[in-house]
């Protein structure tokens, strides 16, 4: 049976960008996020954050968490340094209240900005 709409947790969707030496699979990343969050906040802390990896294409992804726990989610993502011996760094690009918002505002917009010629550091 579904949870009543008024009893549902308010959610936030965090768009992130992965910078890694090799491409990381979705399962590996999901496992690593869980390991990182569990190591940092413990089991009860993880249940408070109530996160799950929604989408990931090898470079950009969206993770869902409870509203008011975005700071913890960001910290858990920042603590990921290695996946299967591959060095990795995750940057939270932005937070939105809807998946569509996160996708359009942060991921697609980032891709559009990247396609435009950018001044490189000399």
């Amino acid at each position, binding site marked *: 049976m579904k949870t009543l709409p008024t009893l549902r947790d308010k959610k936030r969707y965090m768009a992130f960008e992965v910078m890694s030496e090799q491409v990381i699979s979705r399962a590996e990343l999901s496992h690593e996020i869980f390991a990182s969050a569990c190591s940092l906040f413990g089991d009860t802390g993880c249940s408070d954050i109530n996160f799950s990896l929604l989408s990931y294409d090898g470079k950009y992804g969206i993770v869902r968490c409870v509203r008011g726990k975005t700071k913890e989610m960001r910290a858990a993502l920042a603590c990921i340094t290695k996946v299967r011996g591959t060095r990795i*760094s995750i940057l939270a690009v932005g937070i939105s209240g809807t998946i569509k918002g996160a996708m359009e505002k942060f991921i697609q917009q980032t891709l559009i900005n990247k396609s435009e010629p950018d001044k490189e550091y000399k």
Partner: protein
Amino acid sequence: MALFDGKFYDFYTHPAPGNGVALMAAVAKKYGYSGIAVTNPTANDQDIVDIADKTGDFSIFQVFEIPAKRAKLRDEIKKHKEDAGILIVKGADEYLTREAVETEGLDILLQPQKFNNVLAKIASDNSVTLGFNIGSIIHTRGEARVRELVLMRANLKHARKYGIQMILTCDSHSHYDIRSPREMAALSGLIGMTEKEAFDAMSTTPLGILRKKSPDYVQEGIEIL
């Protein structure tokens, strides 16, 4: 969040020789930093630092990390005091930490392992900035991380009580180790630092140190018009 629109600096990086400085600078710029400081730059890194100074878009500074050795510490700080680079001492035991904070001219004391009210008072009097190494939270797990968090919480209490300026660094050795200012603020929140404190530690305090190191600076409260 308008708080994170300012200029941010990381004053403790160790880029790899070769194109490490350029790569790290590019990633730092992408992440929203306005400048980084290279620790003990080599001759090759020095060229890149000079080029960055001329372009003015993104700043690269020099940091001299004084090795915490009993005999040389005071002399080394005095020797580099007049240099343009920022002086950092990585906190070691209580005796060396005391020697470091007592010597005039030190800019940053990074993550002291033993810090107490006496040292905090001296550091506050000598305008020494207290550094928090967020990299130690990122790169350790389990018991080691717990120890680091306990240490940083204690240091934060002392810094708040004695009004010591704070600075945040992620102690990056490659471009994969850099974290954006928002991530740094989130991680500093784990030790109880507020967002305003984190912002000051990455923006206001570094800008103050840079002002102190500029050739125009005379003394606190004195300005040449």
